[in-house]
Structure formats: structure tokens, C-alpha cells
């Protein structure tokens, strides 16, 4: 087996488990089946939580929303950053404006931003958290993308394309973004981990996600009091979050092209 498939295996397993997990859950997620904080036993391999619900079932059900929200945040943030970064490299005046705006947004603490947006958002659900994470995450990613795009924008083929009258958007999508592949894939991986962190923080603070939803971060918070009685109620969701973040980053590391198709040899 080659390096790529070995690197991708863990993430595929985690994604499948998170997406299809609810189908395999032995019990309902709101159904008390054992004593509160009961230790693992027959029928409840990971024991019970604060209300005697099955930890395993809630673990299997609690990853999907987190995964979907985090992927959405990472993809949107990286996409916006790539486009804005390339535009900023091509049009310095506009770029300066975007950069100053980004500077201001970077000053806002993310947790505070989530709480403000989450609390003022009409209704509940994950949408406000996703919106907040995108708004507050994009400035960081923009900085990285703009820095990577600057040398590409100065190269000969971009000059020729603009002399041939290509529009800015065409320059962005045809000439610049394809050459940022390595940077953007790395950025996507980092933004995913950051998104997991933001979404779980929000759940932990009960912004967006309300009990009795099964959610890994919410599980940690709910069951924290009973850690000594049934450690699995807290350990299992914590490990799940860690494995998700690490395996996704590993996968992006494998997917990122090494600097092979560069004409410049390194010394």
C-alpha cells in the first residue's frame, strides 16, 4: 500500500463513522437505559451518562453535525480567502482595503464573536455558529492566501494574461489559484481543525446546540460532573474530537503536492 492510501485510511474511517454512526446506534439518544453514570456493562459498552442514556449511542449520533459544520466552515473560509487573496495580489489598491478590514476583524476574539452572533441570532441551531466561524476565520486565512499569491501575481504568465486583456476573475481562477494548490490544501487542513475547535467550543458554551441533542462537545460538558463515576462518558467524546482533527490534518498533509512540478531546483 502506498503512502497516500495509508495516510487517508484513518480519515475515511472517522468520516464514515461520523456520517453513518446514527444507523448503528443500539439505543435511542434520549432513552434512559441504565443508571446515571453507570459503568460499562452488558448492553452498554461505554456505560451511561448523567441521565442514564447510552454513551455509545450518543457518541455514534453526535459526530455528524460537527463534521458537516466543520467541513462547511473550512471549505468556505479557504475558498473566500483564496479568491480575496488572489484579487488582493493583483489589485494592490483594493488589496490594501481588504487587508485593513481583515486587520480589524482579526482583533475580535472568536469565542466572544460566536457568543454575540449566537445570542442575537433569531432561533437556534448551528447556522449562527457557522456564520460566526466563517466571518472570524476568513481574515487569518486571507492573510496566508494573499502572501502566497503575491509572487505568483508578479510572474511572467500573469503579465502576459493581463496584457491579453483577461479579466481579474479569469486571472484569479485560471492563472493564480491553480498555482496555490499546495498552500490552499494546507490551509484547508488547518482551517478544518480550527473549525472543529470553534464548533465544539460553541457547543460547550451551549451556543447553537441545545440539550438533549447528542453532540460530542455537549456530552463533555454535560457529563463533566460524573467523570470519576463513569470516565468514558467524557473520555469517549474527547477522544473522538481529537481523532477527527488529527486524522483530517494527516490526510491533508498526504494530499498536499510536494514541490515537484517546479522548474526551479532547490539548493
Amino acid at each position, binding site marked *: 500500500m502506498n503512502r497516500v492510501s495509508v495516510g487517508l485510511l484513518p480519515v475515511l474511517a472517522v468520516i464514515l463513522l461520523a456520517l453513518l454512526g446514527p444507523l448503528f446506534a443500539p439505543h435511542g439518544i434520549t432513552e434512559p437505559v441504565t443508571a446515571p453514570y453507570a459503568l460499562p456493562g452488558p448492553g452498554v459498552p461505554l456505560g451511561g451518562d448523567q441521565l442514564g442514556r447510552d454513551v455509545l449511542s450518543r457518541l455514534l449520533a453526535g459526530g455528524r453535525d460537527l463534521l458537516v459544520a466543520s467541513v462547511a466552515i473550512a471549505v468556505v473560509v479557504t475558498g473566500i480567502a483564496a479568491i480575496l487573496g488572489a484579487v488582493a495580489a493583483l489589485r494592490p489598491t483594493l488589496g490594501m482595503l481588504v487587508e485593513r478590514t481583515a486587520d480589524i476583524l482579526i482583533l475580535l476574539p472568536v469565542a466572544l464573536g460566536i457568543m454575540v452572533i449566537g445570542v442575537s441570532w433569531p432561533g437556534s441551531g448551528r447556522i449562527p455558529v457557522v456564520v460566526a466561524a466563517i466571518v472570524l476565520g476568513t481574515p487569518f486565512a486571507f492573510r496566508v492566501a494573499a502572501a502566497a499569491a503575491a509572487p505568483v501575481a508578479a*510572474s*511572467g*504568465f500573469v*503579465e*502576459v*494574461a*493581463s*496584457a*491579453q*486583456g*483577461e479579466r481579474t476573475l479569469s486571472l484569479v481562477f*485560471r*492563472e493564480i489559484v*491553480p*498555482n496555490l*494548490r499546495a498552500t490552499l490544501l494546507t490551509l484547508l487542513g488547518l482551517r478544518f481543525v480550527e473549525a472543529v475547535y470553534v464548533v465544539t467550543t460553541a457547543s460547550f458554551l451551549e451556543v447553537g446546540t441545545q440539550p438533549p441533542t447528542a453532540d460530542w462537545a455537549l456530552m463533555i460538558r454535560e457529563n463533566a460532573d460524573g467523570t470519576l463515576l463513569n470516565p468514558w462518558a467524557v473520555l469517549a467524546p474527547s477522544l473522538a474530537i481529537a481523532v477527527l482533527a488529527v486524522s483530517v490534518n494527516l490526510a491533508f498533509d498526504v494530499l498536499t503536492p510536494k514541490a515537484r*512540478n*517546479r*522548474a*526551479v*531546483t*532547490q*539548493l
Partner: protein
Amino acid sequence: MTTVLDVLDFSISTVDGLSLTRCDRLTAGKGCIIGVVGPSGSGKTTLLRGIAGALPNGPLTVRGSLAVLGKPVLALPANELRQFRREHVGFVGQDPASRLNPRMRIRHLLAEAAGGKQFSAQLILADVGLPATEELLRRKPGQLSGGQQRRVALARALVRRPDVLLLDEPTVGLDAALRKRLCGLLRDRAEEGTTILLACHDMPLIEELVDEVVDLGASAGVPEVLTDHRAPDAGGDEVLRVDGLSAWVDSRRRTPILHGVDLRLTSRGALAVVGVSGSGKTTLARAITGLHKYIEGRIALGEALMPLRVQRRGPAQRRRIQLIPQDPLGTLNPSRTVGATLSRPLRLYRKVSARELPIQITGLLDTVGLAEEFSERYPHELSGGQRQRVAIARALAADPDILICDEITSSLDASTTEDIMNVLGELRSRRDVALIVITHDIPLAIRHTGTTLVLEEGRVVRAGATSEVLGSSRPPSMARPSSG
């Protein structure tokens, strides 16, 4: 005499058996100058990198022996090798400008290379022919011209006074005067005891300077100049007229690059723009193409005045002037195939339908002497000469009246240069394309252009028929032809 370099039956190949370089015997004592010659792809650069102990990454088979100052550099542990290189070896690669940290000022670039040793920035910069002013020391690499960057890179290699100096194509991008200065400098250093290895296409330099030549190729030889495109420019209509073109570095208009340049180009004509590095040649090309922002003056295409900025020009105006830029590595988009690169201008300007594209692309590749299969290749799979051919084909795809070639042959060997110039000559006679050839290669200008314009510090100092301007009474800065 102590042996500084000792190479015996040395070869490097990939594990698939593709030979990267072969050198049967090379020995050099203290103060020797050795020329490494051979056609493109014969492994000159790889040999130099082997001597520096810096082979390309990846599994390689190395055979034979290679010792520098008695040390087997390729077998040294990493930290010893680093120290050895730091103390004894200076290396200037083919594209030295890209090795300069763009964020560091020239002063710090030199200090870093000196590695704590005392040195005089004034002396070292004077050695490579740069004015050692406070202002220059404060600049960053991006504020220097291509030729100046090369010289800073050279100064960095010289400043530590290494025992072994490895130079890969050191004269590329230098005009005749600087080349002469470099010659003298290398000779002085050799007399002081530095062993110098030159990988070079520049045969006159080799003949003039080196004690011994090592030929890595099967002696393909440099062909004689075959074709003469010194077609007279008379009779053509005026296609381009530039009056009083001035350009500045930025919008504040404090640092001028061009001062009131006038220029005429007739259809099917070829105009050479020559001048020392930093004289504003590239800015002139970019200004005519409409890419330089801070300019003033008038540019007329045929009868009609044209907007200065490319964004304000119409598609028909943009189509008629095409630029082939300087940087041989960045001229093609690395993530698109040759076919994709060529199809874009075909669709943009000529509205070629998807069905007809392959035929048109094959036709274009044929015009520049490349086979049909090249349309599937990526730029990193092409040699320097092939890349420039593709760049010419891309410019032709727009069906232009004027081609501006910015030093497109400066990193190519003599025979490839002739081939490329012949392709351009054909275009002049067959397709009625007028050429602006920016170069510092005086013989090339004499062979291939009808009129010449000499730039000095952004001013036209001489203009007229090439034979008169560059012929008998050359301006002092162009005193010596750079190849012949």
C-alpha cells in the same frame, strides 16, 4: 601545487538509469580556472551541485570519486558538510536572483553571506560593478533590475573569499562592459588562490579565461551562424510610434525610469533595444504593452493613438501587441499544459471553436518547430528553449502585428538562441510581424535587427540603423561583443 578538486570516473544517474551527469576526469589546483562546457542537458549544473555537495532530492546513484580539498563532500555528514560549504565553497546558481531573500536589504544580504567576517561593502560591490552608495545598500532585491540582482548574488558568493568558487552561467544577463569586468575580477581572484569552476555557454569567455576545459557533452559543438535576417526595414509602413514616453517607479513620480523615449517601428521591421542592465529596457517593453502603471506620453498604433493602460485598450488593440516576458521560468503557467496555454488566446481573440482548437494548436506548435505531442506537456517537462518556443507560440495565437521579446534568449545556449531567432525571423517575413528585440547581446542585435535604440539610464542615447549604431563606432559601454 595542492589539488583542490579531484574528480575521477564520476557519474550521477537516477535509479531508473537516466544519466544526469558524467565526468571522467577533472583535477584542479589552487588558483586554477576550469571551464565546464557541453550542450544543454549534459549535466553541467548537476556536476557543480555535486561538487557543492548539494545534489537534487530523490534517490540517485552516484559512482566514482569526488573530492574537494581532499574531502569526499558527498559522503560528509550533514553538519560537517554545512560547515565545509560555509568555509570553503561559494556557489552562484543559474537563477541567482531567486536565491536572494526579497525581504532583506542589500547591506544585510552581504553581511549574512560574510558570516561575521569583516568586509567592505564598498569594495565588494565595486568588484561586481555596482555603485556602493548608501542608497543601493538600503534597497531590497525587488528594487533592483535583473542584472543587478545577479551581481548582488555574485557579490554574496565572493564576500567570504571561498577557496572554491562555482559559477553557473555567470555572464547571462550581463552586458559587454560588465562581462569584461567580471573576467578581470575572476582572474584576480584566481591569482589570489581561488579555484574557479565555470559552467558556461559563453565560448569566448571560456577561451579568454580558463586554464582547462572539461567537456561533458559528446561535443555537439556550437554551430556557425547560418541565417542572416538582416532584412532592410525600409519600405514598411509605420506600425508603432511612441513619443515622449516617461515612466516612474510609483505614483509619487519621484524616481524616474524612462525619460521621454521616442520610438518608431515599421511593419516587418525589427528594432533592437540595447543598454546596460538597469537602463529601463524591460520597463519600456511593459509600458508599450500597457502593463506599467505610472507612465506618460503617446503611443500610436498605425494611425490611431492608443490608451496607455492595457485595461483601457480594446481587444483589437491588445491583440496587435504581444509581449514575451523575460523570466524563462515564470513565463508559462506551471499548472496548465501547453495546449491549455495556447487555447486561451485562440478562443479569446480569434473565437476559434472547440472543434477546431486541436488543429490550430498543432499549427502554432509547428510554426515554432515543436511536435504535436508537446500540447500535452506541462512547463516543467520542457527545456528552456522549448519553453521560449511555447511562449512565442502563445503570443502568435493572438495573431499580433508587433512582438516584444524581452531578453528571451539570454539564458539559452548559442545554437538554441540562433534557432529561436530564426523562428522569429520567419515570422517577420511570412506573417508580417514586426519585432522589438530587447537584448544585451550585441552580435545578436547586429545579425537580426534593422534598427537599434540604445538606452542609458532611461534615455535614448543613440538610435538609427543597427549597422551604424552598433557597427564601427560602438558606444563605449558596448565596447566588446559578448559572443561571436
